């Protein structure tokens, strides 16, 4: 993704930007790619369903120590 290949991919998606903005934009892409690589690497079961954890049951948590 940090290579200019992302420019073509963006264009295919209908997203274009001036050539003079390429360097600045590439900095963001490089940073985001690093973050995305990090989350891809975590070892989670294929069957694990991502869930919204903010449900009222959370309030039932009590201090046990």
């Amino acid at each position: 993704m940090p290579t200019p290949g992302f420019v073509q991919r963006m264009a295919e998606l209908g997203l274009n930007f001036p050539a003079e903005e390429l360097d600045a934009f590439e900095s963001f892409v490089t940073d985001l790619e690093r973050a995305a690589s990090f989350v891809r690497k975590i070892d989670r079961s294929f069957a694990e369903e991502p869930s919204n954890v903010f449900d009222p049951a959370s309030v039932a948590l009590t201090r046990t120590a």
Partner: protein
Amino acid sequence: MIDKHLLTIAAIGRLYRSRALSPVELTKTYLARIEALDDKLVSFVLPTPERALADARRAEDEFTRGIDRGPMQGVPYCLKDIVETAGIRTTGQSRLLAEHVPAEDATVESRLRAGGGVMLGKNTTWEFAHGGPSWDVFAPPAHNPWNLDHHPAGSSSGSAAAVAAGFAAGTIGSDTGGSIRQPAAACGIAGLKPTYGRVSRKGVLPNCFSHDHVGPLAWTTEDVALMMNVVAGHDPGDPGSVDLPVPDYTTALSGDCKGLTIGVPYAWLDEAKTSAETRDAMEAALGVLRALGAAVVPVTLSPLLAYSDSKRVIAMSELFSIHQKTLRERPDLLGASLRYRIQCGALLRAEDYVQAMRMRTKLTTEMQALFRTVDLLVMPSGEPAGKLEPTPHAGLFTQSSWTTPFNTTGNPALSICMGFAANGLPQSLQIAGRLFDEATVLRAGDAYEKATPWRDRRPEIAAPLESQTA
């Protein structure tokens, strides 16, 4: 008596109810200050003096007739300009919404109006509460009231600056990665990110649906508690809203921390390369909390970067989904900073979003398990504010943030003033608590503020108008 524009919401309420202060008189004081001084601070993108005076006259009339709508009756407040207001322009600081006049109030504004509040205007923010500070958007960014050459952080920039400068008694901001707490920290005031689902987001322009929170900022924690008493509560119009009873947050303000166990994630301070000055300020604050009755223990959590990476992958995906049509059809209407950030979202893969959500679940489970052993977590909210200048493009997503973890996990977190750095800019303390236990967070913040002298100090711009130099 203290200058009227420096009164807390608690004091205003007492003076109104003893007929020692008039809502119209106080509102005129704030409006005069905004008109005379806000060209320096740029904390308002749209003052609304006619609306404010109408609200103030209504409050005054109702007090005269014995009608009491609660702690915000007659209290002048303002709103971050992503909070929609019926009949009043709401731009999100974006040229895209330059002419946007909503038909309805956001729920948080409806509650403040129903509570008799006085709306002074709309506060400067970053474009769509995300990309900033920027100079190529609808309006320029706000300045820091303690030093106008410095930034007030973001994205509730103008909101925090206005309160610190004595332009309003309280304000409403939003927080997706720290956007209430970091401006509160930079401006030396109190700002609360409530638990996810506690305060309605209906009618607030979205940044990242799954991490957006709405909450109050004010000079003191006690005032934040009073505002929470008005704005918190279930709203069926917000899909993330939670239907749980809302306590009277002021009853928790005992003035001590007896029986509380406070955890300190020291590794986060190392990871964020915390300055010696900020570390010293935090150790002094921990000493105050111990003296107030708390036990302080070290704790361990996943690295800050794990929270940030999870949040940013999710946020960029959601931001792109919100703005993709504009990016394709009218990218010229968005500032470069926001445009660069959200265009990146197009490059993320479906598996990245799902995997980031899984990581969020893991991190949230870990955080809630920790809160079985401690009542609160404490750390700085941020370093003192830097110069007001464009954010460098490189390294944006590798900056360590002490505020983002609580957007990832949804826990409530408060920023309060922790003293002042050698350059005169505020230091800040962040206090986080269990889900839906804002009361304990506010209790500790209020006790700390009342045990320290920081609430007695104001920036020069907060001086009375008659003593201001040109």
